[in-house]
């Protein structure tokens, strides 16, 4: 799950870069940049959840 989260983080950034390069209008770019950030937040959630132990993280 941790690796998947990291991949999603990078994928969100790739969507953002692609939007800047490939799209022309501000509306299209905005939509894809926001979508990229959404994917990143999903990845961040997975990374954080992967580090939570089932019993609350106590040693």
């Amino acid at each position, binding site marked *: 799950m941790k690796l998947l989260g990291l991949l999603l983080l990078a994928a969100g950034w790739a969507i953002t870069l692609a939007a800047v390069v490939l799209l022309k209008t501000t509306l299209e770019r905005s939509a894809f940049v926001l979508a990229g950030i959404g994917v990143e937040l999903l990845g961040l959630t997975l990374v954080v959840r992967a580090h939570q132990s089932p*019993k609350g993280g*106590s040693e």
Partner: protein
Amino acid sequence: MTPAALLCLFFILLAPLAPAGLALMNTGLGRSRSAAHAMLASLCVMAVAAIAYFFCGFAWQGFAGGAAHSLPVAGKEWNWSAAEPLFMRGRPLDGSPASLVVLLQMLSAGLAALIPLGSGADRWRLGASCASAALLAGLTYPLFAHWVWGGGWLAQLGANYGLGRGFLDAGGASCIQVVGGLTALSVTLIIGPRRGKYAMNGIPAAIPGHDAVIVLFSCFLMLLGWLGLNAAGAMLFTGAEAGRAVLIAVNTTLSAAAGALAAVAITGARFGRPDASLCANGWVGGLVASSAACAFVTPAAAVAIGSVAGALVTITVAYIEWPLSIDDPGGAISVHAVGGLWGVLALGIFARFPNSVSGQWLAQLIGIATLIGFVLPLTYSLNWLLNRLYALRVAPEGERQGMDLYELGAGAYPEFVTHNEEFTQL
């Protein structure tokens, strides 16, 4: 040197008060049995960051208009990295703008490297924190700072794609604060919570900082440091004229003030009385958020930016502790990562420029996406690899004894009675 360069040098010389204040805050928010360790770690991390930046950091970062590696993408030049020689060879340190950039950046790299210490308090080994600081100051920080301050592709979004003036950050809300805050998040995830922080059912125990006085005093020091950082950064990286320093100082102070008062109001409403450490975090959150837009907004906007930052910091500190179960004793993730991201976004919302071009907020969003989608995985991977080679976390015996005795052999307060096991009853 010109009068403007002398003024800029004066502001840069104020900047070390920011890491000094942050070191005191991190120490005060940790336990008394790790206080000497926290201060020594701060000193060592600053030292390692300065050396690492001298060794290779400046070679990656460079300065706007300097040598750089570019890659053509769809007919546009994307500037990815500086191409300066290692060890700053051939770089005259003579009071020129480029030499002032070197000085400010060396201090800024140290400040960024200091931020994660607040999150790793009471369990992060001294050697490991120094190694992590070397990675931050030698690679992560300079690479992103080049993209923003060194004429890199984020700075060129305006010229290449018509997005406002490109990604803007006058005082380092992104380059210093968010980069440090995301590294703090990575380190905290990797090393896990302090022993005894979470019960078996996941409910967190309160482990209060040991010295509220130095925590609150550090806020005054950080104000001075931030005035220097914001003013010098705005002059060197956004071309702000010397007279704008007054507006920058007013905005920085107002943002910090609003952040602290927002924290006072929220903690007062929630707990029935203000919480000293959260109010200090609100103050610093206001400072952090002010950094990006301090040169481009009105004082009223600075109050709004600081208020939101103080509220965000106060709310996210609690949320990160529980239910996310991330143990961040210094609140570095909330203050520096969340506060910094808000500051970057706030510039896109509140900034007003003469001859304004649309799309500034989109450029800021692309910067935020880069921080979360590139900097976070990079800094996480580097610290994960480091942890494989050299464990970041101290042995359980070290946590029981306290970092002072275990790693340094002597405590910070040898004549005080300490309560070693009061929070470790599991």
